[in-house]
Each structure stands twice: as C-alpha cells, then as structure tokens.
C-alpha cells in the first residue's frame, strides 16, 4: 500500500547553476592512418578493386579515414590464406594456441585507451562506455577463451573436439571491437582460422585489432580482416571453402544468409535482432528498477540487440515508475561522445538516425504519447533525445518492430499471465528483464519467457563466461561460455 502513495505536483528541477564543464578525453595519443588496406595473410594489402570508402565520425560528420573495399577476389585470397594457415594452426597444441590468445588479450589491455578513443570516434558511443565496457570486456573474452584452448577435451569429455576449419565472421556496427572479440577468440581457441568482416561504418577498431594481431606474432593467415559492405559479406557467405558462418546483425540479413547457405555443408550461428520486454512488478525496488530500465534502453544509444525496448509496468506502480523514469531521463547528458560526462553519444549513422526518426513519427501517428527529455543536443552530428512512448499498444509497430535507438515503449499490465503473454508475443526472443523483490516470481518467469537471456533485477550484464544468444527470429547458437565454443568445434 505504501507504493500507491498520492502523487503531488512537486517537481524536481535538474537545470542547475552548477553545470559540468566539458571534460573531453584526450585523443592526441592515438595514431590513425589516412588509408587502411585489407589484412590478409599477416600483412596489409591493397584491395583488388583499388576502391576505398570513407569512414566518418558520426558526432561531427568529419571523415576520419578511408577503408579498403574487398571484392570476391580479395575474400578468396583471405580464405585461401586462412585455409593454408589452418593446416599448422589446428595442429598446434592447445597450450601454444592459448599463449597467442593470451598475448592478444594483454596487448589489448595495454592499448585499451587507444582502442576506446577510436571506438568512440568511429562509432559515436560515449567514451565512458567504450572505456569502461567495450574494451575491457573485449580483452576479457580473449582471456577467457585463451584459458579453454588447452582444455577442450575436459570441456567436452569423450567427444574428441576438433576444429571446423575456416570460419567466416560478419559483425555489426554497434559493438565493433567487442563483437570482433566475441567472434575471433572462441574460433581461435577451438583451432579454427578466421576471415572477419567488420561493419562498413565502424571498421577502424577491427583494423587496429589487425595491427595488434600482427604485432602479437600470431602466425600469418590465422586471422584475416576484410572490410566492405554487404557485397563483401555476401562473398564470405557464398565462398565454397568456408566451413562455418557466424553472423551478428539484423534479422533480415540473417534470413538472407540462411537462405544462401542452405544446401551447403556450412555451419551457421546467427545472433539477430531483439525487442526485449523489461518487466517491473509492484514489489520491485522501484528506484533501482528505473535505473535498470534506463541502462536497458539508453545504453549505447539503444543500439543494442538485447536492449530492453518494451517496458511493462504493473498497473499499481505505473504512475510512480513513469514519473521517476522521466526525472531520470532529465539527468542524462546527450552530446559529444568524447566528453567523459556524456551518457548518450551519437547515433551511429545518418541512415540509422533517419530510421529512428521514422519510427518516432510512426509512434506519434499510432497515437502513443511521446515524451522526450528536454536536454540540448548538438546541432551537428547524429543525435537523438532519449524518448518514451507511453500508453503503447501491443499492436503498435513501435512495440512490434526493432527500432535500435533510444526509444522505449511503455505498457502496463495487471497479472503475471497477461505480462508473460505480451512479453512473448513478438517474433524475437533474445533477452528479457524481470524486476521483483520475490525470488520465486523470478524463477517462474525465467521458465516462461521465451528469451535466450533473462536478467533479474539487473540488465545488460555481459560476461565472457556466460552464454548469450536468442530464440525464434533472434537467431540460434550461443556466444560466450562453453556454449560459445561448441559452434566452433566438431563434437
């Protein structure tokens, strides 16, 4: 009953005389080339097409560098290099493979600041996140998988684990370095060789990783990094000498990939879109739940496949939750990603911003009640205010479709049955969140929510030891943990 207090007109004011002065991260120490080539067989080589495309800083629209565009011939070269390297790499003892992977992890820690700054420049995410989450977690994935390299027989006893061969990996633009680590580390630990394609808007940290891998002394051809857009990806997917495709990205492309490799021997794992339900029960610790909701949807500008983009609030606490959510949103700082105080950085690309704005328009037209924080946003660059849609309906497109931006829909519910049905009533099934003080309720829901990951009283927690992946149109296969090694092994 104490929760259902009367709510007065009392209003908090977060516009204060005490503003935070800008605190930009120093970028003087990083070295970036004007032009980046393809990393094939341990060296940087010019693309066959001689074509390069520009990569921009989404916060300033400034060009940072040019990146080579790989065509089918380049991809073929990379696959051949990987095939050749596979002979030796797969026969190396697990202990030796582990040493190389450990070395990559340590080098990444040593150059953490440089990686963080470049990740922020190229992708638009706040330096706070790239510094505290992306880069340390990427290094941890290498550390974790390095440890498994010589213990595969113990991880899968009596199964005689063997590597698959050459794996083609295609990663998205939302966590460029981290996704590269998620993909490369288990593949190497299992004894495979790799051809990886980063997303075209965010190639730089993968190319810096290529430099790091070269410096680490990893045998030539074990990791090859080819840059380019969809065509380059298609060349990898369709290459006949690739044994496995690992893809993280949109559901549409995932379906295409699945179609194009049907009838071949290639193995496949897909980590696709999501539209996660974040469910707050009346007995939850409300302030912490609100904080979790904010982290769930506004982390990385909402460019997170497992973002908690559908909020379900139990009716009796809906008013207070929404009020607190609005107040919390007022304190979020949107702006220069390089500023250490920025909470929400730049939207990754013009196209993505257009898509988000289109959905905001759709939401308004559908009749949901929009609320946006009153923060100032820079006039240049791609920025979007944190946005709520209140009174959203299950049949609204903004509720059904993945927006991949800082946009949260809010629905209320009365009973557990109702919220389970609504939470599951979506083609996706990647993640979900449950907020309650009652342990039994958590276990009840984790059994019934059709989602690969269910967080309880927290959200967006990632650990190399924990498997991650989805149900339904969110894909199949797991990354992280022992489960993440399995797709890279013949068992």
């Amino acid at each position, binding site marked *: 009953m104490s929760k259902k207090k009367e709510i*007065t007109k*009392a209003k*908090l004011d977060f516009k204060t005389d*005490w503003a935070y002065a800008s605190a930009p991260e120093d970028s003087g120490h990083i070295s970036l080339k004007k032009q980046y080539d393809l990393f094939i067989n341990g060296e940087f080589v010019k693309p066959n097409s001689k074509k390069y495309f520009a990569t921009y800083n989404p916060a300033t629209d400034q060009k940072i560098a040019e990146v080579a565009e790989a065509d089918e011939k380049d991809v073929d070269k990379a696959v051949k290099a990987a095939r050749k390297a596979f002979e030796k790499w797969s026969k190396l003892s697990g202990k030796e493979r582990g040493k190389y992977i450990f070395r990559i992890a340590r080098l990444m820690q040593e150059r953490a600041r440089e990686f963080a700054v470049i990740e922020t420049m190229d992708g638009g995410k706040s330096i706070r996140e790239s510094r505290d989450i992306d880069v340390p977690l990427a290094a941890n994935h290498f550390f974790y998988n390095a440890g498994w390299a010589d213990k595969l027989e113990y991880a899968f006893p009596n199964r005689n684990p063997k590597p698959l061969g050459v794996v083609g990996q295609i990663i998205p633009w939302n966590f460029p370095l981290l996704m590269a680590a998620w993909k490369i580390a288990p593949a190497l630990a299992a004894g495979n060789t790799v051809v990886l394609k980063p997303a075209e808007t965010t190639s730089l940290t993968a190319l810096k990783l290529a430099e790091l891998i070269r410096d680490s002394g990893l045998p030539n051809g074990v990791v090859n990094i080819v840059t380019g857009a969809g065509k380059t990806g298609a060349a990898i997917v369709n290459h006949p000498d690739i044994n496995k495709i690992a893809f993280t990205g949109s559901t549409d492309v995932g379906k295409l990939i699945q179609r194009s490799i049907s009838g071949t021997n290639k193995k496949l794992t897909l980590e696709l879109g999501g539209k996660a339900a974040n469910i707050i029960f009346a007995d939850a610790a409300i302030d*912490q739940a609100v*904080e979790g909701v904010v982290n769930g949807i506004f982390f990385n500008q909402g460019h997170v496949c497992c973002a908690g983009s559908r909020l379900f609030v139990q009716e009796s606490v809906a008013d207070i939750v929404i009020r607190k959510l609005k107040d919390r949103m007022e304190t979020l700082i949107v702006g220069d990603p390089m500023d250490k105080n920025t909470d929400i950085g730049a939207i990754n690309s013009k196209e993505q911003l257009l898509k988000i704005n289109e959905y905001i328009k759709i939401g308004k037209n559908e009749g949901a009640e929009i609320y946006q924080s009153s923060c100032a946003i820079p006039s240049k660059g791609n920025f979007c205010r944190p946005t709520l849609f209140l009174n959203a309906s299950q049949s609204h497109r903004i509720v059904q479709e993945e927006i991949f931006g800082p946009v949260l829909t809010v629905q209320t519910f009365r009973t557990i049955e109702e919220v389970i049905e609504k939470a599951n009533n979506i083609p996706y099934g990647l993640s979900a969140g449950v907020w309650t003080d009652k342990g039994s309720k958590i276990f009840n829901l984790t059994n019934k929510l059709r989602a690969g990951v269910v967080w309880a009283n*927290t959200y967006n927690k990632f650990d190399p030891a924990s498997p991650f992946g989805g149900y339904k149109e969110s894909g199949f296969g797991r990354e992280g943990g022992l489960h993440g090694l399995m797709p890279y092994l013949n068992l």
Partner: protein
Amino acid sequence: MAAKSILPDFRITPTIDQVGIEERVARFTTRSIKKESKMQGLKMILNMIDLTTLEGKDTEGKVKQMCYKAVHMHDVIPDLPTVAAVCVYPSMVKTAKESLIGSGVKVASVSTAFPSGQSTHEIKILDTKFALENGADEIDMVISRGEFLKGNYNFVFDEIAAIKDVCGKARLKVIFETGELSTLDNVRKASDIAMYAGADFIKTSTGKISPAATMPVTLVMLEAIRDYYYATNRMVGMKPAGGISTSKLAMQYLVMLRETLGGAWLSNEWFRFGASSLANDVLMQIAKQTTGVYQSSDYFSKD
C-alpha cells in the same frame, strides 16, 4: 509539520536493492568535474560544511578557535564562503553562539543523549531544551536504534515528533547511525519514519561508529527524500556525516545530490557535510585551483 495525508505503514516501506544502489553510486563517481565547475563545486562544498567538534575533551578555547575558523576559512584567498554551521555538544553551544554573533554561521547542537541515545525521554527533552535555550539554531538528534531494530517504529516516530515540538523554529536533523542499522532497507525505513515525524534534515551518522556516511547509504536517503517530496511537496535536507574527508569524495556526493534531487537542493539550506577535516582539504584544492600548485598542509590552520 508532518504530512497532512495519512501516514504510511512503516512496516512496509519500499524495498532497496543493494546491488542496484551500488551500481548507481559507481556511475556517479565516474563524473569528471573540472575547471570552473570544480571551483564552483569546491566553494559550494565549503559552504555546506558543518564544522564539527564532538569530543569529551572539547574546551571552550577549542570551540572559540573553531568558530573563528568557520568565518575566516583561509583569509589569504579572498571571497571564500563561510561554512554552514558549527556542530558542538550542548554544553558548548553558548560559547559557539557568542563567537559567531553576526557571522551568519549557524550553531548546531547534538542532543538526545548523543551519540548512543540511551537515555530517558525526559532527559532527551531536557537535553534539547538546554541546547535551544543556549542559542542553538539547529538540533542534531539521534534515534533510538534499539527500539528501531526491535521493530518499535511508533516509539521512534513519537520520539522524533516530540523533539520536533520542542525545537520550534530550530531546524531538526535526525541522525540514524546507519552503521548500526545493518541494511539499506532499514535505512530507507528510518528515513521515512523521520520525515513523516517532522525531520527537517535526515543525517547518516554520529561519526562515532564505523562505517559512518557512505555513498550507497546517502543515495538511499536521497531517494527517500525524493519520494517524500513527490508525496508531500515538502523538501527535506540531507546530511551525510563522518568519513568524508577529501574534496574528491565530497564532490562525488554533490554529483549524486545534483542528479538525484536536482538544483533546488544544491545549497546549505538543504545539504550539509558533517565533517571536521574536509574543510582543509577543500581549501587546499581551492588554493591549487587558484595558484596552480599544491601547498603544504602547514599553510592551512588546523582548528
């Protein structure tokens, strides 16, 4: 001054998730406060300090010196604010009051058998009256932790309300001694009880028990103040006390305050630091910001 609306049932106050609180706190500590906002923050901190001496061996001389310092923080640097108040035992209130005439610095007195609160109702009332008669502007009372932990919330509520009655115009700070309450849920409960009973300020600790003020505990209290404000439209102040001895830490508290309750609370009318050694560290930082170099602690008076 208790809310006109019906009192909540203090047996079922909102729950607190400790992990969530600690994560939120960690986020505050990553804010980077530089340049002019640092200077502004430092001066604000200085102006929010309750300069405190609460020892058995306190003398009138010591209190007088402290009071002088409260007004003349570091005369080498012009335009420094004073502290908010000095905080002393009831027996020293008269001395402090006389020393501070015309300065604008308030005199706060601890009361109700501080620090343990182990005494009778009558003595607690008398203790408070004595401090007020000697000129105390503010009363820092302690709650009866034994009764609280026993679940005797009505007792705690009534005691606070009774002291509040005695206080009249003097502002009442209610000390929970959070180091003895053991859980954040209890901290939240104590906050609700105190505010509904009429507290003008809620305060973490006496400084006599470790742990004293921590950021998680303070955040729980700030969020309780926020909920109370939502429900009643009445502002309540916050005073973390004990254990905050560096400017850096104090700045993190200020960030937490700003982002939890907003601009209205950013003054010594609504926020205080109960501290003795913090002031000199803030002065050193201000000197550093002004001159560009750190100075020896010997340049700052220790009163």
